[in-house]
């Protein structure tokens, strides 16, 4: 009946450095096992899977002539712009929905509706309204990350402990301040979930966004490679997107750790 004492957070009575080392070790091992499996699979399915080696070679090639970096820069710019706008909008709209019943009533059906619409279907409309420049591309990414994270934010807002809001209200706080100083920090855990998911959605939509008359970008690179069945380049694209997404996610995780150190958790 004796369980081990539960892992505790940084404020634990025991220091946790050793655990952190073990953590990284497991991650690294897991990544290598994954690479190994990929390599094995690529031997079994040479037509559909590039081998890690070929991909690495292609990566070096693409990096060597600079095209990779142009494409990364273009995509990063789009993802970042779309994600930033989408997140800010999601927080504002999510608050509005959580706070004002009228706003919730007016917006809810539309959000639920558009959330299930594939981004590809939005593209023709975006072109007509916004042309073939950067605007529609950023718009599609914005939309995707907005639609994902607005739900999380909204849920965060309605889950805020009522006594905390009351505590703010009795100190004379107006709605705006309650939002900024209580609802936002209290729903930070939810908002960060939303942001992390929104970021995923933003990257995943990138390829669709760059269907819109893009001349550069990782999605464009992959689409071009796809029509030429250039597996190596497709895999380079996937891996670069994956790694960039992972890095941005790490930044969010780090931000989360900083922003929620007040939280008591396991």
């Amino acid at each position, binding site marked *: 009946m004796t369980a081990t004492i539960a892992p505790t957070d940084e*404020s634990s009575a025991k220091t946790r450095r050793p655990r952190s080392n073990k953590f990284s070790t497991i991650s690294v091992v897991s990544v290598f096992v994954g690479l190994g499996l990929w390599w094995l699979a690529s031997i079994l399915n040479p037509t559909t899977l590039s081998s890690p080696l070929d991909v690495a070679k292609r990566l070096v090639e693409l990096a060597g002539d600079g095209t990779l970096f142009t494409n990364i820069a273009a995509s990063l710019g789009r993802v970042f712009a779309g994600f930033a706008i989408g997140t800010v909008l999601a927080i504002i709209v999510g608050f509005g929905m959580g706070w004002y019943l009228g706003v919730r009533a007016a917006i809810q059906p539309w959000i639920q509706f558009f959330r299930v619409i594939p981004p590809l279907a939005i593209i023709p409309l975006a072109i007509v309204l916004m042309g073939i420049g950067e605007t529609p591309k950023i718009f599609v990414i914005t939309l995707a990350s907005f639609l994902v994270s607005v739900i999380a934010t909204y849920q965060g807002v309605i889950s805020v402990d009522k*006594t*905390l809001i*009351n*505590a*703010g*209200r*009795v*100190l*004379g*706080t107006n709605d705006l*301040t309650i939002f900024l*100083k*209580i609802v936002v*920090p*209290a729903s*930070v855990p939810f908002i960060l979930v939303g942001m992390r998911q929104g970021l995923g959605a933003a990257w995943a939509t990138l390829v669709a966004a760059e269907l819109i008359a893009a001349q550069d970008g990782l999605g464009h690179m992959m689409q071009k490679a796809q029509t030429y069945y250039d597996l190596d380049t497709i895999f380079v694209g996937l891996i670069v997107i994956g790694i960039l997404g992972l890095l941005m996610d790490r930044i969010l995780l780090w931000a989360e750790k900083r922003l*929620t*150190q*007040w*939280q*008591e958790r396991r």
Partner: protein
Amino acid sequence: MNHKIAFQNVSCIYELNGSSFTAVHDVSLDIADNEFITVVGPSGCGKSTLMNMAAGLLEPSDGRVAVDGKTLTGPGPDRGVIFQQYALFPWLTVRKNVEFGLKVKKLPKDERDRRVNDVLELVGLTKFADAWPKTLSGGMKQRCAIARAYAADPSVLLMDEPFGALDALTRVKMQEQLLDTWTKDKRTVMFITHDVEEAVYLANRVIVMAANPGRIQEIITVDLPYPRTEEIRLSREFADLRNQVWNAVYHHDSKENAS
């Protein structure tokens, strides 16, 4: 003497999944300006509910609550509230929690710092000014909540069992301090407690509530002079009043339980 807070035939009915529960039934009570009112009564008799209505956090199902003659429509910084459950902002340090109300009031930085340091000193949390609430012990959390309410310097203090988690010495210290500032600034105080001695020691009038439905059982005027001293606490009059309140709370209660 004009009425600072007036409850006029106030009822509060909680509706929950169809069924409804009368937490407070037809309560009328006038609290004079500068009056120190304590509220006692058995657990669940509607003390917190009554206070929440005075705070403007809960709308009466019937009747009205007025402050300074105006029907209440919501909370305001004129009425400071200490909640039964601390309600500290977990993402702010002790200092920031206390400073919160002052920032809302847009006080200048140095004024804020001065006041925060004063109240932290008062509640003995100076050393923990930069700690997160999660690192505080139960009593320290409560002291932090008290400091936050004091700092904003409201003209009405609504306190829900504020000294409940404090050890005896701190408690006495806080009582003295509260009476001290009250005699100086003459705020209006509505103070909920489950300690009959504390209720008598602090109050102009003790409101004794009864449960099922929550209502006022009796109002006992405490005709003892301020400042209240250890001497007064040990006096015959004090003992009599304490017994009177005790009987009002529990004699009635046991009668009811028996019936």
